[in-house]
């Protein structure tokens, strides 16, 4: 295992210390329990948006904490759900009197732990609502989920729901907006290589020199099929056609197109994928009104890509364009 770490057990704590040192202008980091909160939290009168999930997907979620994004993020250990006390403490720290929205990806462990934290928060008379992402069209149930897995749509949710909360929507409105995004976003991913969890020390699955896994999850969960490597254009078709057919997206729809790297895929390759994805979208009559290209929801050092589409009406576009100031996404401010 080749990693820039000191010891597997300290990876998350030391990364959090680094985030605290690098982004002290924007965030506060708690090391007991682990969470990252907006420096100016609680923001009075604003719905507080709190996310969380296993580490190893950076910049998700901690990189999206800040103005116009999340109020707090709760990182578990690598590929491990955060515990209820993290969401409980973080939510209390950022609650500005307008309720808390929990926003996270559909994994059984995450749901269970967010459930417990929500019971604890309600005992404190804090109102809590929830938006899930379950956008991965590759498989129905999976290793760690009942239902579909939540993957890259989570990033778009963080941005859009964050903007809606910043714009002053109340908890019910923010939840309804989040649910509408959940209903109209779809994703599929693939991997060229496995990744290595620090405390495991070896790749979590094996792929031959000429193989790829299509429909992979963000923890290396099996996908739809293991196949010989093909060209970038063919790979893009294998991902985007099932995404488009699933909703389905229809000719004339405005969409946000998001090409995401899995962590170790160079940007030069992501643009080659974007090129073909934009061509396929155009062929289907979709109008790409906004886009995002980069490594935003990763699986440690996995090489691979995912493609996400989200239907985008004028309101979604307006929320997308709204100012955001986080470590990983920033514009307008």
């Amino acid at each position, binding site marked *: 295992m*080749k*990693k*820039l*770490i*000191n*010891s597997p057990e300290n*990876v*998350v704590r*030391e*990364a*959090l*210390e*680094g*985030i605290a*040192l*690098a982004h002290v202008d924007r965030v506060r980091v708690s090391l007991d329990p682990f969470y990252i909160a907006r420096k100016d939290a609680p923001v009075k009168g604003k719905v507080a948006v709190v996310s969380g999930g296993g*580490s*190893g997907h*950076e*910049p998700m979620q901690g*990189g999206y904490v800040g103005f116009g994004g999340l109020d707090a993020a709760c990182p578990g250990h*690598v590929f491990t759900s955060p515990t209820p006390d993290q969401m409980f403490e973080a939510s209390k720290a950022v609650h500005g009197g307008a309720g808390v929205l929990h926003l996270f990806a559909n994994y059984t462990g995450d749901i269970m732990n967010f459930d417990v934290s929500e019971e604890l928060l309600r005992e404190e008379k804090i109102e809590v609502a929830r938006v899930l992402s379950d956008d991965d069209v590759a498989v129905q149930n999976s290793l760690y989920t009942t239902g579909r897995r939540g993957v890259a749509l989570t990033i778009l949710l963080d941005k859009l729901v964050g903007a809606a909360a910043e714009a002053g929507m109340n908890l019910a409105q923010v939840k309804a907006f989040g649910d509408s995004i959940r209903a109209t976003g779809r994703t599929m991913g693939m991997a*060229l*290589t496995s990744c290595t969890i620090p405390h495991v020390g070896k790749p979590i699955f094996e792929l031959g*020199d000429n193989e*790829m896994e299509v429909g992979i999850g963000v923890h290396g969960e099996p996908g739809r099929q293991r196949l010989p*490597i093909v*060209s*970038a*254009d063919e*790979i893009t078709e294998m991902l985007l056609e099932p995404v488009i057919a699933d909703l389905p997206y229809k000719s004339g729809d405005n969409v946000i197109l998001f090409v995401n790297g899995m*962590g*170790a*895929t*160079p*940007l*030069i*390759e*992501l*643009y*080659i*994928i*974007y*090129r073909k994805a*934009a061509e396929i979208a155009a062929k289907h009559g979709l109008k790409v009104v906004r*886009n995002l*290209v980069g*490594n935003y929801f*990763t699986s*440690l*050092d996995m*090489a*691979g*890509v995912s493609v996400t589409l989200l239907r985008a009406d004028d309101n979604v576009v307006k929320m997308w364009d709204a100012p955001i*100031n986080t*470590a990983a996404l*920033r*514009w*307008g*401010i």
Partner: protein
Amino acid sequence: MKKLINSPENVVREELEGIQLAHGDRVRVSLDPFYIVRKDAPVKGKVALVSGGGSGHEPMHGGFVGLGMLDAACPGHVFTSPSPDQMFEAGKVVNSGAGILHIVKNYTGDVMNFDLAADMLREEKIEVASVLTDDDVAVENSTWTAGRRGVGLTVLMEKLLGAAAEKGADLAHLKALGDSIRATGRSMGMALSACTVPHAGKPSFELGEDEMEVGIGIHGEPGRKRVALAPADEITEMLMEPILSDLPFKSGENVILFVNGMGGTPLIELYIIYRKAAQIAAKHGLKIARNLVGSYITSLEMAGTSITVLRADDNLISLWDAPVNTPGLRWGI
């Protein structure tokens, strides 16, 4: 070789097509010859900043074209210098009459081809000056350079000079500012793994399972030493201490600290490096006025990191904070 590409010979062209499709709101791409220019170029009365170099270092340089940074970037093939006609044509397109500043990393091929382009532009009565980066303290001469290699400082140089040009600085002033940045910035890098150039098809060098290369160049050029893998904190010391002693940076100084990923290194690891780098800077009495953490000057999918320290007076900090709107770096707008 596992890559998301269609064919090695089309990598750069197809990437550029992807950039045009993704960022058509900000840039225009020419495919013959290859260059990327600001969509609103030429910007009347502003000195035009033109950079370039081999591809494979994305987002550098094409990702830094836009308001507050470069006017044009000229990508060569992977790890290959761009040819003079690229800088000549791009220079003519972005020149608004206030002259052109070339920002060139110190590699023999790049220096020669930018020189030729500058001569051709001068024949057209266009004024051209040039700023070099040669910030890598690891080695004095190297495989592809006379003198030191230009590495991570180039990203900071493009941001700072871009801001100064946007504020109306003239060519002589920009050249002087660039030279002062060159004189006060230092970098050093290391690699855990090699990278594979698409048309070569195999790793550009071999590293054992327990080895790392300290002082690596951004094309996998040999560094200072090949040693056994060490903890992240020790690696950070091996990079920071030679940087600090080289200038030398002195107690009480304000600096910009830049921790860069080589392409295949997850962000979680870069924050572990940043943590220790900030501690070492503090121990030396340096005040980190601004920072940057992420993969901005890469070597394809190489795993590794580099650290850059730049002395930062109030003027540089104000230039750093000035608005920038490029695909690779954006804030304030």
